[in-house]
């Protein structure tokens, strides 16, 4: 699935092109500048069917003759040179690494950074200039997330791995899943679970084996690599279900998997528009599955409430479905967590039954998958 934009050779070519254009400018007696499409609101569209798309209409210029931007210009150039070097040596770096690449003698008085925010901001700029995610030029994020289930894949080293045979957590999704090829997919669907506890319980209860499901463990907000990985699975035709808490944050977690997020809207292939939300909903709490367990709801914290208020304006939550859910928080000031399944099962015996009946109903209803 690696696209042209992300192939190593293409990235190298683009970096060299930028360098040469700068030299030409200077030789003409002009200050060099770099033009790029900013990830401003106007350049980002949101469509319910495909999520965020980056469609530049306006462009910005990093102008080399201005005091305010000459540091940015030099910084981007230096960053691109370092990225090229890493690509050529097949090495990755973290954002912290990138920051340290600026803590060198030669950059004193110029780019030697005050703190990491400076170099982090420049990474986004490089993404926009190169039109590629930072992983494409070797700056990876901390890996987070596992997948457990009957999926066979070939990873960058060429080895074949089966995701339910690599330990009880399953397969750790790597920072750059681009390198993975799927060999065989033996599951009916992937259930991406927000929290480790419930996901682990499903695995312990044998649900993946018994019902032919894969369990993806997000551990909070889905990481970029996990989102890319789920999109790759979706592109293979696997139905993706997102199982989250019922909280203002969980709406965002789900929507980010489906639509991508505004902060990474300029990066393609992070959205999985075919994925479906099967998390807890207002209806489940009010009149459905959890109606007798209202007392087990948690109050919203101040941060939760703030998130709910912000949700009102988030473009990827504008669909009436999300807004209706979100209104519930603003009105009731409560949330339901996946752990509520525990509060419902007086003894551990009942837990499997509860999980399965919940999954059965939601998978059928939202993805047409029968288990």
């Amino acid at each position: 699935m690696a696209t042209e934009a992300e192939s190593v050779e293409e990235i190298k070519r683009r970096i060299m092109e930028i360098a040469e254009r700068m030299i030409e400018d200077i030789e003409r007696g002009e200050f060099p500048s770099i033009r790029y499409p900013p990830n401003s609101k106007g350049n980002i569209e949101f469509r319910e069917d495909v999520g965020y798309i980056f469609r530049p209409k306006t462009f910005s210029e990093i102008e080399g003759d201005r005091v305010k931007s000459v540091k940015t210009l030099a910084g981007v150039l230096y960053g691109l040179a370092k990225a090229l070097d890493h690509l050529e040596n097949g090495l990755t770096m973290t954002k912290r690494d990138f920051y340290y690449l600026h803590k060198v003698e030669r950059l004193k008085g110029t780019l030697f950074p005050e703190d990491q925010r400076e170099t982090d901001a420049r990474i986004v700029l490089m993404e926009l200039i190169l039109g590629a995610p930072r992983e494409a030029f070797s700056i990876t994020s901390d890996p987070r997330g596992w997948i457990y289930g009957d999926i066979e894949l070939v990873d960058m080293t060429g080895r074949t791995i089966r995701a339910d045979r690599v330990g009880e957590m399953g397969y750790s999704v790597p920072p750059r899943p681009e390198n993975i090829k799927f060999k065989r997919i033996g599951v009916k669907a992937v259930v991406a679970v927000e929290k480790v506890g419930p996901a682990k319980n499903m695995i312990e209860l044998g649900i993946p084996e018994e019902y032919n499901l894969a369990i993806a463990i997000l551990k909070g907000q889905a990481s970029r690599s996990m989102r890319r990985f789920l999109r790759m699975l979706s592109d293979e035709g696997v139905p993706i279900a997102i199982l989250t808490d019922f909280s203002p944050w969980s709406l965002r977690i789900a929507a980010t998997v489906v639509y991508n997020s505004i902060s990474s809207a300029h990066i393609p292939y992070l959205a999985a528009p075919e994925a479906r939300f099967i998390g807890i909903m207002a209806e489940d709490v009010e009149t459905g599955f959890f109606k007798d367990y209202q007392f087990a709801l948690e109050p919203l914290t101040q941060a939760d409430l703030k998130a709910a208020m912000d949700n009102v304006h988030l473009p990827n939550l504008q669909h009436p479905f999300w807004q209706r859910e979100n209104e519930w928080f603003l009105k009731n000031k409560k949330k339901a967590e996946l752990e509520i399944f525990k509060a419902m099962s007086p003894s551990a015996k009942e837990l499997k039954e509860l999980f399965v009946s919940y999954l059965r109903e939601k998978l059928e209803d939202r993805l047409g998958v029968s288990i």
Partner: protein
Amino acid sequence: MGGGLKELEQISAADFFYRNRSLAGFDNPVRATYTTVRELVENALDASELAGRPPKVMLTMEEVAEGRLEGTAVYMLRVRDNGVGLDPEDVPAAFGKVFVSSKYKLMQSRGTFGLGGTMALLYGQITTNRPFKVITGREGSPLYEFTMKIDIQKNEPIVLDRRILAGVTRRSMTTVELYFEGNYRRARSKIIDYLHQTAIVTPYADIMFIDPDGLFFFFARTTDQIPPPPKETKFHPKGIDFELLKRLAETTNTRKLAGFLTTHFQRVGPKTAAEILARAGLSPDLSPKRLSDEELERLFKALVTYDNYLPPDPSVLSPLGPNLWEEGIKKELRPEFVKAVQRPPAVVEGHPVIVETAIAYGGDIKPAGEIQLYRFANRIPLLYDVSSDVSYLVARRLNWSVYGLKSLEDEPIALFFHVVSTKVPFKTVGKEFIANKPELAREVELGWRACARDLRIYLSRKRRAASAARRVELLSRYYALIAEVLEELTGERPPIETVLAKVARKAKVEVPVEVRESGDGS
């Protein structure tokens, strides 16, 4: 009232103040020391200014004995001015009686109740039982020395000795010498502060002070120009009360009511007088001295309810003026920038008021972590209760960032506020801060805004010059790096010198001779 009265006795005004001396700032030895110095300095300055010459005030203070209380001492204080001197006949009454004041006229003056100086003498007498001396003479006339006390119960002067020191006085002068019990050690910083701030607002005065430790403080004048002395004026009809009207009517020399009104009140011409008398139902020909109480009351009502007067005459006020004030601030604080503004006259509660403001920046003024605010009322520094003053409240609420200032506390800036009026709107009896009247707050705000506009222009000019040079330096530094990285990437070093030369020419700055080499090759 009621049934409990016994041994009724009337006491004199001096006696009342003797019993309630805290009223006038003599509540403890420290405060009394400060108040004594202050009252005498103010009298001396008033005397010299009224004589129309730059004041020269010389203070000497000596410790002559131990005091009765811990930390106190008996001090001799001598204050000499270069005013016109007094007629010897006036001396006993002027110094030996409480409540001497001039008659039914309004005039801007420093004095608080017009009795501060006498109170200081009284305080000295109570605490030491020593007489005080007054030495005074007018140029060309003899120089007299009076040795006096005050009979507190009768409120009468007692002249113990009167002698001629010299047949001819060479330069007019008055010296007052008294003894009092006080505490200079702890009053010291307040006194020096007071003299320093007095020098700010009186740049045309020489003020010298030799303190009990023998230290010599000299606040030298830097100008000969003194502001025109304040004039006396008549009352504005809106500012009177019935009692005052009655007294004027009893003592007037005018014969007819019409003349009475135009003679004793400002803003009342014949036409206005006629209108008022018509409203009062009184004939213009009546004699003011023969009015019945009831007629007087009608006249009073008509006077105060009439609404078409011009506002009170501000010519009675004597502001310092922007030039003199800037002079005073420069000489005492040596700022790099100063701007003073005199506001047009305004009216506060029926009295004319002129507000003067100034702002000084940089130089010897350093950031102090708090607002540096100097306040003056009729040329007297106000040293206490700054945080309740109208000017402090305005300083806090003004949006200084509009003028390129981040914070008053952390920048090298000082604010100045001077209110001049026939009746300064003090908030408390202590007369240490000015009431937060909206009309006044507005004047202060407009004044400071005008000063701040000039400051903004000054600061932005200064900043622009610095920034052009910085731009060339900065671009040179970054292009050295850009050239290096480009060379690493392509093997080719681009000719950055050409482009840099272009900016440097525009900014009229040299390009650094060598574009800085970076330290860490690679």
